[in-house]
């Protein structure tokens, strides 16, 4: 069957099981959009900005585990994807970005809307392609999906020249190759099992790799069998129920007191699917010093990159745990768990429950219907959400961890809504919301129910907090001084807005918000007024160790 390149592309996407794409049309993707229109097999979500489309594809991928797909035209369309692709790259999220480019006759001549997007995205993709021959298109698209979804997952960009989209060639349908994680080397497993079995006070650090491998049940089994507490990284949130007695909460710069104390006390650290970023291993040379560190990661390059491990294993966390579990001796560690319990009590006692943000997030996590994904932007509200909003299952938490992309949330929430069919809760701040609030229009167009909790403090809170701690309260450019009426703003876009002022009842307001969002199938923005002086605590300063966790801000 002879088809045009554009039709081949759409067919290949359908082959891969793609039913939703996020994108924005333009000159060099007209043929692709025409094929999309004629095919009718793929739901296309038209965003307000290509960055929103990339974040939406990312959010969709995080909640579904499938590969997210976004479309953009050449030039500015393609460059607008860059932040979204980089976000996915840093967090190892499978994404296929399709861009158009000018025809071969115009390539390399600085033509209108021509940009070397493959050149630009080399450092932020697992791999990328420019397709100049229609005969290579199908194989390239199939390969792109294979690369994105295998090993350490990540984004792949396919740049398709305009004349490739119109050229015809023979197309033969193909069933996508099933991606199976490689089995792990058994001789290594024995050594690792031996070390784990020898540990007296073990602690597990679970990262995004646990989520990516869908290994949460196996992780919980390991923890239970070992009687071993689990601290999760930001990327690992959701891998263990928060109310599990073995769950310590988040570890890191703004991690819990319980996680920090458990780590300090532990003799064995079992790191699963985590890369010891500088927000976790704040001082990589002293992190877990003199402890047995067992590192399991799918990417060999992560082994010994930041923290030197005692033993390591390169492999998918799920495959590893499957083979490892039978080798682990069931243990009861009464003394260790008594200590852990004490740490958790201390943690609860030290929580600043007077924070308005804490109260709102805690209430939201209780009011939100089961299965609602939590999406955050980046900054203070992100850390508060990670600390106080209970996420009890994997793939219900989307946050830009590695890149820390302000403006990630709106797009990601739309993607998460399409991925789950549920009502996402977006926790954002007025700084972040200002970056990509335009996607609220998209959410309205597509009648996406969601509740946007806008932590409105009028400042860039996290930067301001650092200015308090490290820059003697010189608040350089962190006071927003905006006069935006967010309720009216939401209303003008066709969404609903509500105010949650200092005197208003949190629970009833949130209940109304969820009721309206679900009832009217619309985004509902809740303008949550909070003080600019609320801080994210506890905190470990950059480069410091876990015994220096501060619980109150010493301002200078």
């Amino acid at each position, binding site marked *: 069957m002879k088809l045009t390149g554009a039709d081949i592309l759409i067919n290949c996407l359908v082959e891969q099981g793609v039913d939703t794409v996020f994108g924005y049309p333009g000159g060099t993707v007209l043929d692709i959009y025409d094929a999309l229109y004629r095919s009718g097999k793929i739901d296309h979500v038209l965003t307000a900005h290509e960055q929103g489309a990339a974040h939406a594809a990312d959010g969709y991928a995080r909640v579904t585990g499938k590969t997210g797909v976004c479309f953009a035209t050449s030039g500015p369309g393609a460059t607008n994807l860059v932040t979204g692709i980089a976000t996915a790259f840093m967090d190892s999220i499978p994404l296929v970005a399709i861009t158009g480019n000018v025809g071969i006759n115009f390539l390399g001549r600085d033509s209108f809307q021509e940009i070397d997007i*493959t*050149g630009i995205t*080399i*450092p932020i993709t*697992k*791999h990328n392609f420019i397709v100049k021959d229609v005969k290579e298109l199908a194989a390239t698209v199939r390969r792109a999906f294979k*690369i994105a979804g295998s090993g*350490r997952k990540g984004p792949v960009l396919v740049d398709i020249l305009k004349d490739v989209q119109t050229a015809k060639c023979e197309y033969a349908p193909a069933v996508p190759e099933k991606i199976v994680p490689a089995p792990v080397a058994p*001789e*290594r497993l024995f*050594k690792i099992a031996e070390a784990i079995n020898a540990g007296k006070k073990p602690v597990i650090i679970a990262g995004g790799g646990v989520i990516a491998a869908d290994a949460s049940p196996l992780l919980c089994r390991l923890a239970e069998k070992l009687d071993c507490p689990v601290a999760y990284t930001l990327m690992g949130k959701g891998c263990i129920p928060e109310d599990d007695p073995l769950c310590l909460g988040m570890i890191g710069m703004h991690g819990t007191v319980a996680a920090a104390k458990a780590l300090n006390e532990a003799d064995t650290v079992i790191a699963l699917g985590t890369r010891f970023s500088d927000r976790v291993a704040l001082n990589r040379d002293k992190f877990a010093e003199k402890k047995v560190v067992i590192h399991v990661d799918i*990417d*060999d*390059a992560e*082994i*010994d*990159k930041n923290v030197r491990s*005692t*033993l*390591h*294993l390169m492999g998918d966390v799920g495959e590893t745990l499957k083979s490892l579990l039978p080798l682990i001796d069931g243990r009861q560690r009464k003394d260790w768990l008594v200590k852990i319990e004490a740490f958790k009590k201390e943690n609860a006692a030290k929580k600043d429950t007077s924070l308005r943000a804490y109260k709102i997030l805690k209430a939201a996590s209780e009011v939100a219907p089961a299965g609602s994904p939590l999406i955050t932007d980046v900054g203070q509200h992100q850390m508060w959400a990670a600390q106080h909003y209970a996420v009890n299952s994997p793939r219900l938490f989307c946050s830009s961890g590695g890149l820390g992309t302000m403006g990630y949330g709106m797009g990601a929430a739309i993607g998460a809504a399409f991925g789950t069919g549920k009502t996402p809760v977006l926790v954002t701040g007025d700084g972040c919301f200002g970056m990509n609030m335009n996607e609220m229009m998209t959410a309205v167009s597509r009648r996406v129910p969601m509740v946007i909790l806008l932590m409105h403090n009028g400042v860039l809170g996290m930067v301001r907090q650092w200015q308090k701690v490290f820059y003697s309260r010189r608040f350089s450019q962190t006071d927003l001084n905006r006069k935006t009426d967010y309720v009216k703003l939401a209303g003008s876009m066709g969404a609903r807005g509500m105010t949650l002022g200092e005197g208003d009842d949190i629970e009833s307001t949130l209940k109304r918000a969820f009721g309206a969002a679900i009832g009217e199938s619309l985004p509902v923005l809740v303008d949550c007024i909070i003080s600019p002086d609320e801080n994210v605590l506890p905190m470990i300063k950059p480069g410091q160790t876990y015994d220096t966790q501060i619980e109150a801000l010493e301002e200078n």
Partner: protein
Amino acid sequence: MEEKKYTIGALAYNKSGVLTRITGLFTRRGYNIESISACTTEDPEVSRMTIILKGDEYILYQLIKQMEKMEDVIKVGCANELDCVYRELLLVKVHAAPEMRSQIIQINEIYKAKTVDLSPQTMILEITGDPDKLDAFLKVIKPYGILEMQRTGVTALARGSHTLKDRDGGEYKILDKNAD
């Protein structure tokens, strides 16, 4: 860790942009590369490159592992522990007024260099050898006045039947604590 020079051999698919990807990786991760030479092999679809890295063992293993993750890279190996033949080619254009020529030709003979071009005031000399030999030759030639020069960078092959293609992770031996 101790800083030294490592010779790294790599095979990669001969796709457009593959060298950009590899050198981009070195730049963004801050690896200190002294030279890189690359060209196609007996298989026109495969390129081979020799990379000279200045760094410690940590950088060496990071470089190898990061390179091996690249889609277009087939194989990477460090050749330091192997007995290798190292070769580099140098072309150098020197001032050679007629009264100086015989001296330069004498130096050429000792170093087994060749004169490949002669003009009334200049000569181009060609020499092949390991980098130390080239350094020594340059030192002797320098007083005559170097107008311009070009070195190709080092290329290396291991002696014996051993090939990079057939290596299986032997390069990890130094760091691999799990190996028996």
